[in-house]
């Protein structure tokens, strides 16, 4: 019976080009093996060791993970047996990344890719992603996640080392579409009219250095990689939820503050002012302001129409004669122009005087109005107004001062999160500018 040997032997071969020894690490899986001495790609599965290709030694790139290195990766030992450099060309600029082929004789193959210090752990997937759309852009659904299309490119192999379970060739091109849902990505590679899907998972160089016990430190990661998880992921939502919580507390405090204020109407009177009668200074009847150092609000409500008035006011303590002088201008204009109707100012105004001791008070009121303030030479018209004096009105300015401090942090977090996503997508086919025309 042609039963296989219970122990699979590793083997080596002699390069048919230079005679150098090529050690095989992938057993009978290898369909191409590169002679490092002379840069010849050999097919070790053929008895005559067919040469697939020879390429220039000038193309050599040194892998960061030396081939033959084993590491404990995803719960099993894996050995780096192949290395290739692949590049895409975007508007005349070449972007290259490194791919390492990892092998375990029982669990098979997986890959590590490295670009500018960013690493991905890549496996082929089971199952078939389904195409969909997200905000009008291409996307795929797989494993309960939605991956948004990131880039469509022609990837060209620029250098190979070690072994591969397929026939590799320097210069070979494959159409690759990348989709991202950080920290994962999906890649669709077209080869011979068939789509091969693989899934990448973002990993840090430090994790790889530790797993493969590599010397030195991993290269520093620059920029934001397509499927790099955002450090701000979920943070804006968190910050907004926190702000909302604080706002609720803020509103509750404000509400409590407002309803706990006395807000008593101490005095109210209606008057008419006529500009033709000249100066019309008068004092109001005396009214009582209850005890304690509480504020007083003097409110003026007028029926001014396309006009203004100025009020000289004084709140005077009847017994001490101590007065609080202040002025208020009320103006209200409105009309219709080419932009539609407009209005400016307000018919009412108020002034709040802090910490007024309790006692008996009266107001001295002196309204003024420009004698010719009427429009189109009509007889100057006067106006009616109401004066309200309120004791202990809620003073809320401190609340409004605090408000920005509640809202600014989530806004900043949102901006930083958006900036991170902006950097990510700036490298994609969907960059806001750059005139990339291979969006489909």
């Amino acid at each position: 019976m042609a039963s296989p040997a219970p122990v699979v032997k590793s083997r080596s071969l002699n390069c048919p080009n230079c005679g150098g020894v090529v050690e095989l690490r992938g057993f009978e899986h290898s369909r191409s093996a590169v002679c490092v001495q002379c840069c010849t790609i050999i097919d070790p599965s053929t008895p005559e060791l067919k040469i697939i290709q020879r390429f220039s030694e000038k193309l050599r790139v040194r892998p960061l993970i030396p081939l033959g290195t084993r590491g404990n990766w995803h719960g099993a030992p894996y050995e780096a047996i192949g290395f290739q450099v692949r590049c895409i060309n975007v508007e005349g600029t070449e972007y290259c990344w490194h791919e390492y082929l990892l092998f375990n004789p029982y669990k098979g193959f997986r890959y590590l890719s490295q670009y500018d210090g960013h690493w991905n752990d890549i496996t082929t997937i089971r199952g078939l992603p389904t195409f969909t759309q997200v905000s009008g852009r291409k996307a795929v659904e797989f494993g309960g996640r939605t991956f948004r299309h990131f880039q469509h490119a022609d990837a060209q192999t620029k250098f190979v080392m070690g072994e591969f379970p397929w026939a590799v060739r320097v210069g070979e091109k494959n159409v690759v579409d990348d989709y991202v849902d950080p920290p994962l990505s999906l890649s669709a590679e077209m080869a011979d009219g068939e789509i091969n899907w693989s899934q990448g998972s973002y990993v840090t160089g430090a994790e790889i250095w530790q797993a493969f016990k590599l010397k030195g430190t991993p290269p520093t990661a620059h920029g934001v990689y397509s499927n790099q998880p955002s450090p701000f992921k979920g943070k804006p939502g968190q910050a907004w939820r926190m702000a909302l919580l604080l706002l609720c507390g803020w509103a509750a405090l404000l509400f409590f503050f407002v309803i706990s204020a006395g807000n008593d109407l101490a005095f109210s009177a209606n008057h008419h002012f006529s500009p033709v009668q000249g100066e019309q200074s008068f004092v109001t009847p005396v009214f009582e302001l209850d005890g304690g150092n509480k504020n007083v609000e003097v409110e003026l409500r007028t029926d001014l129409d396309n006009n203004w008035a100025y009020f000289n006011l004084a709140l005077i303590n009847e017994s001490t004669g101590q007065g609080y002088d202040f002025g208020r201008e009320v103006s209200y204009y409105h009309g219709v122009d080419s932009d539609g109707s407009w209005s400016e100012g307000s018919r009412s105004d108020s002034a709040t005087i802090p910490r007024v001791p309790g006692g008996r008070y009266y107001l001295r009121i002196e309204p003024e109005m420009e004698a010719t303030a009427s429009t189109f030479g009509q007889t100057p018209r006067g106006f009616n107004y109401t004066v309200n004096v309120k004791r202990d009105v809620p003073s809320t300015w401190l609340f409004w001062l605090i408000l920005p401090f509640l809202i600014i942090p989530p806004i900043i977090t949102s901006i930083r999160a958006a900036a991170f996503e902006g950097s990510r997508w700036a490298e994609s086919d969907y960059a806001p500018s750059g005139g990339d025309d291979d969006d489909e």
Partner: protein
Amino acid sequence: MSVQANCPACGAPITFMWSSAVQTACPYCKAILVRHDVNIENVGEVADLPRDASPIQILTEGIFDNRRFMVIGRLVYQWEQGGWNEWHIAFDDGRSGWLSDAQAEYAVSFHVAPQAPLPSIEQARRGLAIQWGGLNYIITHRTEAAYVGFEGELPFRTTDRERMVFADLRTPDARFGTIDYSETPPLLYMGRQVDFDELKLRNLRMFEGW
């Protein structure tokens, strides 16, 4: 469960591990033996299988969907990107299925009856959908392969096999199927892709240095 017989070519004792086996090879004289009820026919001589690096071998045991199985046979195919194995696995209850191993990617499938006529060999193109078990299976690959050889016990005879056409079926999850066009009407195999660890395989081959 095992059945005893004698090789019609050399007279050596033959043991069928699986009572439903149709084809096996004489371990002594390499004759290909096909069972017809009580008679055993010598239909040729087995060819040596090429070296390969599958960790699985005859008598490897494992578990699939909580049922124990043993590897009792194997078919070897070759296509343009390499070879793969279809390991014939027999379960304790007498059923058998296939554990396919292509470059250490594994799938288990069973011969099933199609619920609707299968597409013809000409119709089987990538992207075509097939209904089975209420699900849409999509043809993702059409593989033209060469039959290389066999070992152990098989549920059918392989003496007429040479060029083969397979259509691979996939779903959005890890379900897996194959249409085998070596017979008319074609045969349908359904199952799923599995993780190496999930099968809890024992009695595996060893690898030098590992």
